[in-house]
């Protein structure tokens, strides 16, 4: 699971008000090379919740993203784009879990696939 996906997901358990961002419990992180596509990055940038991305990248052991949400002018800097690209698309949570910040319910991630299906008593 890439951090882009993480940035889009929340815990949708019935009754949970703040299911975002999901905490990350890491068992195994891998890196996969992805073609660098600046246009895609610029398109997706305004839709990213920055704080959640920074938090997620820290829990995956990468700490080079700026804490503060960057200005959109930063998108012209190749150095920044490369980092953004790396965090968003190349870091994978292969094994681990996403944890609901409110209830502590764990959504397992196996073989890179997050299992977001709810149990009967959570629907």
């Amino acid at each position, binding site marked *: *699971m*890439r951090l*882009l*996906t993480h*940035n*889009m*997901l*929340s*815990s*949708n358990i019935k009754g949970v008000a703040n*299911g*975002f*961002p999901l905490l990350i419990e890491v068992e195994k992180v891998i890196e*996969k090379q*992805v*073609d660098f*596509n600046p*246009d*895609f990055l610029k*398109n*997706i940038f305004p*839709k990213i*919740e920055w704080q959640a991305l920074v938090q997620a990248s820290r829990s995956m052991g990468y700490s080079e993203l700026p804490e503060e949400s960057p200005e959109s002018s930063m998108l012209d800097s190749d150095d920044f784009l490369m980092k953004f690209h790396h965090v968003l*698309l190349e870091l994978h949570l292969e094994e681990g879990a996403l944890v609901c910040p409110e209830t502590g319910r*764990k959504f*397992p991630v*196996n*073989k*890179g*696939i*997050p*299992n*977001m*299906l*709810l*149990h*009967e*008593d959570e*629907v």
Partner: protein
Amino acid sequence: MWYLCVFFHRLLDYRKPEVESLAYLFGVNDALEWKLPKHHHPDSPFHFVNLPSEDIARSIANRSILVKGMYEVWGEGSSYEELEEAIRSYPEDQMLPYLSSDTTFKITVDSFGKVFSFQEQNDRIKGLSYIPFKGRVNLKNPDHKFWLIETDDYGVNNGLPPVAERRIFFGREIGAADRKLIPTYQLKSRNYLGPTAMDAEVAFLMANQALVEPGKLVYDPFVGTGSILVAAAHFGAMTMGADIDIRVVRDGRGPDTNVWSNFKQYGLQMPIGLLRADNNLPPWRPGLKEVFDAIICDPPYGVRAGGRKSGGRKLLKGVVDPYTVPDDKRVGHIPSTAPYCLSECVHDLLDLAGRMLVMGGRLVYFYPVLREDSTRNPFPDHPCFKLVASSEQILSSRYSRVLLTMVKIGPYTEEIAETARRKHLEFRENHLKWLEDGNLHSSVFAPADPQVTAAGDLKLSKDPKPKYRGKYV
């Protein structure tokens, strides 16, 4: 500028929408003008289309799946005498650049509705000697390709009107579809297949309808083995998929036979996200909207595969209270699911698309239609969307599927979601008959023998449908 657009004689209903979508993709914002050669049936493979430039015509033809060729017509007629007269009166300054001595060329003789022997082809090429070709012939890699295309009215067939009347066209090829894609991606050589994997040709058509291009983000909420996303990835899109069945998305049939391996097989960019999620209760964070450029899918409509959603059948009916999972069994618990009927599935799909598509983004999906349903129920609609194309593919005498292409034209708001929900309930009431669980399946598979079936099906045998060639018989 008018071009002759010759189609492959298949998937008739999909041909024009594909060209129209691609024209839009390559920057033509106005509706295209079409016309037919004289006395040709709308199902004819020959159409004239008005496009702003040769470059656009070439881009469309090269990207398309169903365009056999796009031609600049130098002359046409219903006999070779008429053809000669037409070519002789074609402006010389428009011909000469393609005939000069420093170019190479090739003439192909093609036909529709008949076959020419090699001798006949040669005679026809020699008959064109009045065109002042100065260049050298190169059959393998010519600079310019010329086509002589002849059609015949091949008399009656099954009592249907003829598709094309005798007509001869001569023209210069502008571009043609890359049909090599289809054998390359055909399902029989696909590594990981499911029972409802999308045929490669149709998957490419869907990707074209969705205006897929590099850098766009495409989502399939019923991803299965990823057969639709493979086509989108071929055109350079970033892809994401979800499925409720974790075995399909996570495990596949082993480490080298899964959704990932299908992308690896063709050297395509891997999906940037695959997850297990329920389309009925999507896990997207609140506030997330307008992220996908296109949503392309083949929803489970219960004929070959039925949809599932969270919650047990009894639980949803309120017969039993939710099963509380004991804490020690939470890990690895398999939640129960219930059948997911088509009308609900489509409503959820439209709601998701309304929220998650960018403005102008496209939702492309298949919707089943019962053919004896003479009222032709309208297709599902949503206030955020405009239907731009619907192409029918007949699957059996009972039912067909229609590829719907919808464009997002309005922003998604809470009020709109509420209106759509009310509309959906209304729609559901009117269609309950066959959209509910299993009814579509029984309509498709019930025996046709009038002694066995209920009164409703008797109508079928009394009023047989014409032998269909296409939509406009």
